[in-house]
């Protein structure tokens, strides 16, 4: 009972929080030059990690799909199937997991620190709205840079798959030629939509958790922890919901199949 009340309060709070940010954005209160600056900071910091993660995720999926296809003698489909499975599903989820740590937890730690050292209160007292000055630039920067990083990471998964195929002796060109035969426009659209939504989730959760952190250095640690747990859960939940929606739409209108 207590737990469910807490759950409702957190998610209600997050929705109100994102609404407030949206309203302020539409009132044109966003400092876009700060957003650009933040995007560069976040992007440069996380690019190397995203690329590494993308490569390995692609390779892992290629190994697994290869193993399963061998049982049926359908190795010819390796390129298409592993790329499709990675792009639609495993890729966005795993890379978003890492970004929620790198970008999300970092943002929430930064905001939580500003909160517990009373920097946010200082801004309030000096007559400004911290959401406008601190949160808005960060939330948009995180949305945009997470989205871009996810796209980069997904491209790297394709590359990782190709590299691994070459290692295990599947011709890289065959692998690549097979990709368009399975990966449909619909799948790419799905993975782009997922990437964008995960970017929004990471931004809202980490800003919310950081902004409302209380209680010294322990509070900062707790904010980081709770931010990454919430992020991971929501990413998995929304991944399922989007896949569900996509499959329902495809069945209804019979689109997206070859």
């Amino acid at each position, binding site marked *: 009972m207590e737990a469910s009340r807490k759950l409702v309060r957190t998610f209600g709070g997050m929705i109100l929080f994102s609404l407030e940010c949206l309203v302020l954005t539409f009132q044109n209160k966003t400092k876009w030059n700060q957003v650009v600056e933040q995007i560069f900071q976040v992007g440069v910091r996380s690019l190397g990690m995203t690329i590494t993660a993308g490569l390995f995720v692609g390779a892992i999926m290629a190994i697994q799909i290869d193993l399963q296809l061998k049982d049926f003698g359908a190795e010819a489909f390796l390129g298409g199937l592993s790329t*499709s499975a990675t792009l639609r599903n495993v890729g966005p*989820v795993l890379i978003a997991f890492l970004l929620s740590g790198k970008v999300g937890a970092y943002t929430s730690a930064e905001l939580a620190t500003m909160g517990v050292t009373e920097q946010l209160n200082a801004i309030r007292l000096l007559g400004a709205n911290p959401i406008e000055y601190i949160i808005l630039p960060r939330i948009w920067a995180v949305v945009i840079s997470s989205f871009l990083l996810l796209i980069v990471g997904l491209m790297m998964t394709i590359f990782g798959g190709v590299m691994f195929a070459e290692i295990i002796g599947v011709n890289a060109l065959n692998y690549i030629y097979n990709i368009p035969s399975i990966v449909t426009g619909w799948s790419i659209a799905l993975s782009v939509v997922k990437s964008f939504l995960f970017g929004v989730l990471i931004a809202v959760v980490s800003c919310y958790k950081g902004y409302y952190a209380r209680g010294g*250095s*322990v509070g900062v*640690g707790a904010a980081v*922890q709770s931010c*990454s747990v919430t992020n991971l859960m929501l990413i*998995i939940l929304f991944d399922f919901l989007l896949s*569900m929606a996509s499959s329902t739409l495809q069945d209804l209108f019979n689109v997206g199949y070859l």
Partner: protein
Amino acid sequence: MYLLGVQSVPIIFVSLGFVGLMMILELAFHMRLVLKHDALVPAFSAVLMVRELGPVITCLLLTSRIGAGIAAEIGSMKVTEQLDALKMLSIDFIDYLVIPRWIGAVFSACTLTVLSIAVALFGGAFLATQKLGTSPGEYLNTVFFFVKFSDVVRCLIKAAIFGTLIPFIAAYQGFTCGTGSAAVGEAATQAVVRTSLSIIIADFILTYLFYAI
């Protein structure tokens, strides 16, 4: 220490349940695309769950919960000079702080991986009956036919190794934490990021060793 593992149970179960559902959806799509029928969806999803996603996703979730927790805890102990106090009492804090967490983390990683795969398969069975029209019995039959005992052993080895990575990287980040509340946040963040990345890389290496050679 394994209290931490127990607290993570509901979160991990709910998440892996959804992963199980999702696997069925996605594989059904791909199977229809390539093989034009979906009888093998349960088998494929179960194999992929046990070999790959089960341990990886469970341990990534554990990382954000236990890993960030350990780094933040040890980090704040350092900031508030509790570590120095332990040193003064000549207590070896590897023994005192890290070893119990290590045992706890390995134990929770293994048990939670097994349990969460079970939950995911359960979720998969549910969706398979709904969407594909296989009966739960058929589903279980194919699962047991395709998932071999060696897969389960390898899955446990993976979980144990990931479970080892979590407390050690997190504790290291905690011990090397700077001063002030900003540093504690930094330590927790670094712990999550580095552990997650190490888990993915370790997973690649292990999968390669187990299956590709």
